[in-house]
């Protein structure tokens, strides 16, 4: 079963661990601008104020579609969309095209840069002890989302019908 990187913004404390480890394992240095995942903070930057942003590995991937060089293709083993750095000419069209902010420009290598799921064992997930990031099989993730939805509904019922 394919797995997906699950984001839970409500648990993100804005600690930057995922970003530091991502750039460290991919580029050998710690650099918020070379991290494939990024935490966008608002206000004081606490839980419920941060949104982690990372490629969602779309089935119908816009980044791959717009790439004139065909440099973005899917890794069948993990389902990740990978950038072939030899083919990429650095036109940045994919960066602009992605509506989720999932593709960035690697300003050192001069090519597109995006989450590769670390070959199926994402380092960011292992670094997030708060549970804001998870890596789950697509089917069980569905159940979890339902569970979360049911909790929301439960709260809604409480509001509507009283305790």
């Amino acid at each position, binding site marked *: 079963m394919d797995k997906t990187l699950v984001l839970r913004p409500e648990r993100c404390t804005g*600690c930057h661990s995922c970003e530091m480890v991502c750039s460290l394992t991919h580029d*050998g*240095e*710690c*650099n918020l601008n070379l991290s494939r995942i990024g935490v966008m903070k608002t*206000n*004081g930057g*606490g839980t419920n104020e941060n949104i982690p942003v990372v490629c969602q590995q779309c089935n119908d991937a816009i980044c791959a579609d717009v790439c004139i060089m065909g440099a973005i293709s899917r890794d069948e083993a993990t389902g990740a969309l990978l950038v072939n750095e030899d083919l990429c000419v650095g036109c940045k069209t994919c960066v602009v095209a992605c509506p989720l902010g999932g593709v960035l420009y690697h300003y050192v290598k001069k090519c597109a840069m995006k989450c590769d799921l670390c070959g199926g064992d994402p380092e960011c997930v292992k670094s997030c002890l*708060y549970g804001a990031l998870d890596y789950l099989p697509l089917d069980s993730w569905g159940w979890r989302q339902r569970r979360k939805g049911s909790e929301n509904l439960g709260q809604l019922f409480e509001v509507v019908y009283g305790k």
Partner: protein
Amino acid sequence: MKVGGYAGQVLYIDLTKEEIKKEPLDLDMARKYLGGFGLNCRFAWDLLDPEVDPYSPDNMIFMGMGPMLGTAAPASNKNSVMTKWPSTGTISPGTAGGDFGINVKLSGYDEVIIKGRARRPVYIKINGDDVEILDAGDLWGKDTYKTTDMLWEKEGRQYAVVAMGPTGERLVNTSVCLIDKITTWGKGGLPAVMGSKNLKALVACGNKGIAVADPVRLVKRIRIILERFAIHPGYQKLVDLGTMDGFSGWADVHGMSINNWTGRFPTEEAYRIYSPEYYLENIKAGRIADPTCPIGCKDHLRIRKGEFSGTEAWVSSFYGRVVHMAARCQVGSYENNVKTQHFYQLTGLCIHSFTALIDWAVELYEKGILTKEDTGGVDLKHDFETTMYLSEQASKKEGLGGILSQGFKNAIQDIGRGCEECAVQVKGMEPLYDPRMNRMSGPEFSQVVNPRGAHAPQGAVTLYMSKDASPEKFKEWLEDRGVSEDAVKRIFPRPGYFNIARMTPYGEDWVGFMNSVGMGCLRGRVDNFFRGEDWPEIYSAVTGFETSLEEMRRAARRNWHVLKALNVRLGFSKKDDVFPERWFQPLETDDRGTLLLSDYFGNPLSKKDCEELLKDYYRERGWDARTGIPTEKTLAEYGLEDVAADLKKRGFIE
């Protein structure tokens, strides 16, 4: 060899000349003093005129960002600042977490050194190679939250903001800066020093990388450390409660003195008003973590009930704030407590310092030393109204609150009339822990000998063990953290007993070490998840300089010698390491009987015993037991011959 960790540059900013200089970091010097706090000490020793007036343009602000900052190493987030503090007159450190330090590092600087005075209000913007001094006319007069919001609006939320409030503009000494609205920085008057320089704020956004010498080795160690957090049964509770995890320790075990060190906040009262359950349900709105910290102890607060409903604040060390407002000021309900904190955050008033001054002023009023003439006709009590009244005055530097706002040293002179008899302070700074309740452990003792003043957190990680920890636990910690066998023997002269004065230097060095390399320590809570072996491993992996725990301990000890020497040069010595008189009075409590000053094992301590403890401490540090000043021999042992020569030339050592 690939060098990592150190960004490699020192940034000099002269506000008078509007000049910005970048110089390469001397790597040999960096290795000797580690970075952060240690480098600050050395730069201050070399560059800062000891006689300087804290408000003078010649006073300098040293911001040191250790080699771990801006890396993936867990809890690598401590920014260290050093200046000559206006409240105490010492040259000593202040530390904070927050995003500022990592962004300075990621901009390419290990150290930022600021001097001079701008002609008009300005802020400093650091964005990689681009460093600018920009106009802050529109920010002047704004509170910290508004200042931060305006800067985020202008520069973008990716910038970390160090902002001061109106207290800094009015040179209020009992003030702190806020980093990103949350983290307090610079107890003792960093905002006042900035205010005297017309410097309203600093913003930083890094756009470079911090090289790591051996990424594989670092990631391997990170995994080992994080695993210890993840599998610990109490871990989730730590995250949920943040610093309020310390609540039961305060409410049940040791407690906090009330009525200016003459009583103890009753346990039952603490649970009735400030229970963790009430906090989770009605106060806490979110959790905030410093960079790479697995604990995330900072709080986003929102009051849900009562007249202050909707009040929102972001704070660090929430536990300490609650306790100060509860015990020293007795503000009552949880909502009142958070409301006062909100006011302190906005104005940049320091909770640690100013609540102690309120507590003192109320006693002076009750004793008739202060009268209605001084208070502006107001009855001073331990309550919410008095607290807000004096705090508002302090934030405007008016009336009695304004006098108090300049700290114990100045206020004692301004008020006179024998008021110092009631002042519980060391070197002009208020102690936090009462050794009659807590017994004499590391932080209690460090409050007396710390060159900064009565500052506890640096005291000793050892304290943050449970109060029932056996001496064996302390021994384990010391051995694990690289303390030599000989030293352990001196600390434990007989089974089942330790000499706290001989142990304290190793706790102080440890925190000084963490502040030097740039690691957060959240007292014991983070440190408990680390082992001694982690530190040389992380340092070596990050920097590429192979090191050992012994070598790191030696560097940490060296840094403390320099810190001490900095203050010896100002005239500080044994005469200033004074146990507050009130600690020798019996403490009458409602629910714990009468408590006397005692050692960790409950044996009462007399003044003579305390005198002996001081001597033990100096001896353990290799300082002169008569004067409390580092000896020439000790300084030379640590490669500080030039420091010794200077002290000799000035007549401080024979």
